C-alpha cells in the first residue's frame, strides 16, 4: 500500500510532502529517499525487520521501501533507548533492526543484524507495538490492505494539509499518514512536546486543513493558545478519537470553527477503524448496534461493554508476543450506556474505580469538574484505600488568577450536589499540569 503511494511516477514532485518546523521535504525527495533505501537494503527482503520510527520523511521513505521489499515490518518508538529497542527486537525474533543515525538527522540507516530470526509471514505486513497499560507491549499485525481500507481516496480533497498529532508508529498516526499521502497531501508534523502556542503558530503558518486528534489534545490547544490565531487556521475537518468524546468539546469546537466538519471516529489498534459519527453529537446512534452491513464493523453490547467484529481488524497478535490471536467478537474494554436511542461511552473498563463495591468511571466525574469556572484541566483516578478498596482522587489545573483554596471549595460543593457519595472525589490536588500519554490521552494511572 504505502509503496504504491511513494514509488509512483506521477507524484506532485515540487509539492511539500512532510513539513516540520525546520524542514520541508517535497514529494520528489521523498520518493528518491524511498528508492535509495529500497536499493541499498535489498538484503532485508522477505524478512522480519524492526524499524525505529520517527515522524520524518526518512522514516516514511524507509517504511515504503520495506513494504516494497515485502518485509514484516515492526514499528518501534524512536524514543526507546537503543538497548531497549534491541532487546525487544530479540524477543520478537526479528532478523534486523533499522535505526537512524545517532545525530537523528542522517538519512542513512544503521542495520543491526540479529540471530534467531522467526519465519517470515509470507507477505508484506506492518506490526504495531502498543504500549498497553502495563508491561510487555502487544504486537498487533496488520496487512497493508486492512490498514489502508479506511482510507477514502480523493473525496474532493486536493493536496490536503494534515496535522499529525498522534505518535507516528501507532495506528492513528499511520492512518493519518496514509490518508494524507493517498490524497498527495502535506503532512505537517509538530515537534514532540511542542507547546500549544507554537503548535497553533505552525498550523497557521502551514495552513493546516485537517486535524485528527484526541479531545485532550484539543482541550490543551483551546486552553493555552491564542484563540484569535487558532480561529484563523483554515480547518476543513476535525476528526476526534481515542478517548470518550463529550458534548462539551464538540460544542466548543463548533463555536471556534463554525463551518468546519466535525467527525468523531471509533478505532482501536486491534480492530482498526470501526465507525464514525458526524452529526456533532456525543455517542453514536443505537441503530448502529446489531446490524450487519457489508464491509462495516458489527457492534453489540454485552454486560455494558462494547463488542466489535471488524473487517479492518488486525490479522493476529504476532505469534511470538504473549497474546493469543484475536477471537471473532473482540471485547473493546469500552463501557457504554444507552439512553434515548443513543449509545454513550462512559469510560474504559480498566479505568473503572471500585469504591467499596460501587463502580465509578473517571469520565463521569471529570465531566462535572471540567465545566466549573476556573478549572482548566482535570484528571480523575483511583487511589488505593485500606478501608474502601479505592477512593476517587483528582488532580486539577487551575486558572492562574484563580484563588486555589476557593476553587477547591467550589469543586467539593459542586461534586456534592451532582454526584453520589461514592463518585465524589475524596482527595483533591491542584497541580501545574496534567501529562498526556504517548497516544495523546489523559493518563489515569492508579496511585497507591
Amino acid at each position, binding site marked *: 500500500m504505502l509503496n504504491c503511494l511513494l514509488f509512483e511516477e506521477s507524484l506532485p514532485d515540487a509539492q511539500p510532502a512532510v513539513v516540520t518546523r525546520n524542514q520541508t521535504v517535497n514529494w520528489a525527495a521523498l520518493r528518491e529517499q524511498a528508492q535509495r533505501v529500497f536499493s541499498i537494503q535489498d538484503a532485508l527482503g522477505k524478512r522480519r525487520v524492526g524499524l525505529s520510527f520517527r515522524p520524518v520523511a526518512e522514516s516514511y521513505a524507509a517504511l515504503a521501501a520495506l513494504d516494497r521489499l515485502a518485509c514484516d515490518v515492526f514499528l518501534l518508538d524512536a524514543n526507546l533507548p537503543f538497548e531497549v529497542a534491541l532487546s525487544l527486537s530479540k524477543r520478537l525474533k526479528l532478523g534486523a533492526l533499522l535505526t537512524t543515525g545517532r545525530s537523528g538527522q542522517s538519512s542513512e540507516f544503521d542495520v543491526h543484524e540479529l540471530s534467531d530470526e522467526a519465519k517470515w509471514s509470507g507477505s508484506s505486513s506492518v506490526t504495531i507495538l502498543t504500549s498497553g497499560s502495563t508491561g510487555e507491549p502487544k504486537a498487533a499485525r496488520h496487512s497493508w490492505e486492512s490498514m489502508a481500507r479506511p482510507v477514502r481516496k480523493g473525496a474532493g480533497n486536493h493536496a490536503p494539509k494534515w496535522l499529525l498529532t498522534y505518535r507516528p508508529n501507532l495506528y492513528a498516526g499511520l492512518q493519518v499518514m496514509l490518508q494524507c499521502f493517498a490524497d498527495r497531501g502535506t503532512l505537517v508534523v509538530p515537534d514532540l512536546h511542542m507547546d500549544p502556542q507554537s503548535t497553533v503558530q505552525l498550523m497557521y503558518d502551514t495552513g493546516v486543513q485537517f486535524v485528527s486528534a484526541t479531545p485532550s489534545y484539543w482541550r490543551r490547544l483551546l486552553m493555552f493558545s491564542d484563540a484569535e490565531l487558532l480561529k484563523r487556521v483554515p480547518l476543513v475537518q476535525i476528526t476526534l478519537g481515542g478517548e470518550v468524546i463529550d458534548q462539551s468539546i464538540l460544542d466548543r469546537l463548533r463555536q471556534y470553527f463554525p463551518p468546519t466538519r466535525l467527525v468523531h471516529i471509533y478505532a482501536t489498534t486491534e480492530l482498526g477503524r470501526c465507525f464514525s459519527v458526524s452529526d456533532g453529537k456525543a455517542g453514536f446512534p443505537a441503530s448502529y448496534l446489531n446490524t450487519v452491513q457489508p464491509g462495516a464493523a458489527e457492534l453489540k453490547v454485552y454486560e455494558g461493554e462494547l463488542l466489535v467484529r471488524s473487517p479492518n481488524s488486525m490479522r493476529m497478535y504476532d505469534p511470538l508476543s504473549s497474546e493469543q490471536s484475536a477471537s471473532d467478537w473482540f471485547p473493546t474494554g469500552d463501557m457504554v450506556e444507552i439512553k434515548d436511542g443513543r449509545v454513550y461511552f462512559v469510560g474504559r473498563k480498566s479505568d473503572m474505580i471500585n469504591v*467499596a463495591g460501587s463502580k465509578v468511571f473517571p469520565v463521569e466525574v471529570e465531566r462535572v469538574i471540567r465545566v466549573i469556572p476556573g478549572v482548566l484541566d482535570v484528571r480523575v483516578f483511583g487511589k488505593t*484505600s485500606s*478501608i474502601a478498596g479505592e477512593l476517587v482522587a483528582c488532580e486539577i489545573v487551575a486558572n492562574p488568577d484563580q484563588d486555589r483554596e476557593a476553587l477547591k471549595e467550589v469543586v467539593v460543593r459542586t461534586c456534592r450536589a451532582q454526584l453520589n457519595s461514592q463518585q465524589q472525589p*475524596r*482527595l483533591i490536588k491542584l497541580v501545574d499540569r496534567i501529562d498526556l500519554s504517548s497516544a495523546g490521552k489523559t493518563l489515569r494511572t492508579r496511585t497507591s
Partner: protein
Amino acid sequence: MIATDNQSRIIEVLLEIFKAKGLSSPALSSETVLDQLGLESLDFAQAVIRMEEITGKDPFATGAEYQIKTLSDLAVLYD
C-alpha cells in the same frame, strides 16, 4: 487533658471532612465516640488516607482489626 499530636491531627482531618460535607463541625476531643459522629465509612476511609499523607503510616494496611471506639483509640494507632 492536652491532646497528643496525633489526636490533634485526627481532629484537624475530621474537621476538614465535616467542612467538605457542608456540615457544621461538632466539638471534637480525645473522648469523642467516632461512630456517633454521623460519618459514613467512605469519610473514615478518606480520613485514613489523609492521615497516611500526614504521618506516612497506614495502620489498616495490614488488614489487622482494631477495637476502636473513641478518637484517642484511633490516634494511638499512629503513635
